[in-house]
């Protein structure tokens, strides 16, 4: 420990929460972090982690004091590149302005017309999978629906779709600490940005799409042309990976908690709450950071102006101070909806309406036709710096009405 570290006013944690084995099962490490304190110095990453619910909610709910405009990633190159450009890395009125440009196309109100189509697609997908009995719940289910909806919604051309998941995964690795995963992501991050810039400039996004709406906004002087690509990538990548993560986790939890699946089948009106519980227990986004705009105190830890603090969503969402028996999966949990898995406040996930619509449709289709979901082989978690997701989930389903 260096001399400057000795002056850090918070308990320190020496482990690497981005090591492969911790990414695969971070919850023991999270419990250790919460026990150390609400704000813990991550010595391996030179940053403070916010570990408990109350303090995490305070940070996310106080954007004037914990700002996003200096980037929300865990490494300087990513923060320098995204600060002030990507929606998640802006503050105040400018953020509100950008969010409106994007959000008026993707709020639950704006996408209500998609609901019937999404339900039809979900029903067809599940009918096909139930007929197969055995499938990979990641490749064949969790990825299939978002990939059939999001690229069309954004207006992404067909020739740019083959690499989308690889690119999105790279974007999320690049947001983490500057480890091997982040470094290895750079070529794909550059490739996706180059492709997006070409789309933004060349008018190749499909007319009437969310992406074309952003291009139009730039044409009308509502945002600088060089921000178009960042705004579109900032919607496209999360709309895929986070939803895929949550749907994969929903299937894994259903397969490993049969009594909860039976409860959901008996009470399908619990589907929205069950989805909140999935996002609480297996929060898709691991971590985003903020920077203090002035001296403050967080959970008894004095923080100087300009201090970067990182919110550990999955850690706060299992805080026993907020959620009794926090490691239990309970789809009828009374306060599941208070989770921070979509963030909270002005930067709360802009695409959560679509994520809910897709996952509710899939779960509704499944509760009607699947009596039981069983693991049919080893479930493999994906090792990504920012996304808590799955590579493989082989399952067998037992049909039943």
């Amino acid at each position, binding site marked *: 420990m260096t001399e400057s570290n000795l002056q850090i006013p918070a308990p320190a944690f020496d482990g690497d929460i981005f090591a492969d084995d911790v990414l695969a099962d971070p919850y023991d490490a999270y419990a250790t972090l919460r026990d150390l304190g609400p704000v813990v110095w991550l010595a391996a990453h030179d940053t403070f982690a916010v570990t408990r619910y109350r303090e995490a909610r305070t940070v996310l*709910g106080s954007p004037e004091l914990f700002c996003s405009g200096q980037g929300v990633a865990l490494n300087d190159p990513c923060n320098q590149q995204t600060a002030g450009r990507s929606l998640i890395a802006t503050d105040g009125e400018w953020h509100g302005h950008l969010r409106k440009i994007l959000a008026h196309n993707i*709020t*639950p109100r704006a996408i209500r017309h998609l609901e019937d189509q999404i339900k039809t697609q979900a029903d067809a997908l599940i009918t096909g999978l139930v007929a197969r009995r055995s499938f990979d719940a990641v490749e064949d289910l969790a990825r299939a629906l978002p990939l059939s909806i999001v690229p069309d919604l954004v207006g992404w051309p067909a020739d740019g779709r083959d690499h989308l998941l690889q690119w999105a995964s790279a974007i999320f690795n690049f947001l983490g600490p500057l480890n091997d995963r982040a470094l290895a992501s750079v070529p794909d991050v550059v490739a996706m940005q180059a492709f997006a810039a070409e789309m933004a400039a060349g008018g190749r996004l499909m007319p009437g799409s969310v992406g074309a709406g952003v291009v139009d906004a730039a044409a009308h002087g509502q945002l600088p042309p060089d921000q178009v690509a960042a705004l579109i990538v900032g919607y496209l990548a999360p709309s895929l990976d986070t939803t895929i993560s949550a749907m994969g986790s929903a299937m894994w939890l259903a397969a490993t908690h049969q009594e909860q699946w039976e409860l959901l089948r008996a009470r399908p009106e619990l589907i*929205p709450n069950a989805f909140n519980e999935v996002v609480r227990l297996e929060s898709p986004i691991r971590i985003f950071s903020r920077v203090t705009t002035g001296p403050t105190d967080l959970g008894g830890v004095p923080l100087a102006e300009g201090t970067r603090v990182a919110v550990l969503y999955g850690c706060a969402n299992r805080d026993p101070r907020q959620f009794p028996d926090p490691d239990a999966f309970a789809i009828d949990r009374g*306060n599941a*909806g208070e989770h921070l898995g979509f963030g*909270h406040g002005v930067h*709360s996930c802009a695409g*959560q*309406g679509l994520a809910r619509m897709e996952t509710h449709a899939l779960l509704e289709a499944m509760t009607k036709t699947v009596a039981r979901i069983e693991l049919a082989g080893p479930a493999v978690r994906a090792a990504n710096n920012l996304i808590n997701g799955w590579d493989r989930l082989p399952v067998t389903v037992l049909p039943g009405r």
Partner: protein
Amino acid sequence: MRIIIDQERCEGHGQCVAAAPEVFAFDDDGLTVVLQDPVDATAEDAARAAVRRCPVAALQIEEQG
């Protein structure tokens, strides 16, 4: 107790409607509206839970004397 909706912030995620359907609803245009003003004493707990659940922090509680 009264509930104030910041319509500039509200994006219609509907978490309040799910948490306290007796207090919140969507109108025909999909805008979130408060059905009880002031909130009935029996619905106050549900209304508070709904305010906590708003993803975009668009709801505020105004306590009355």
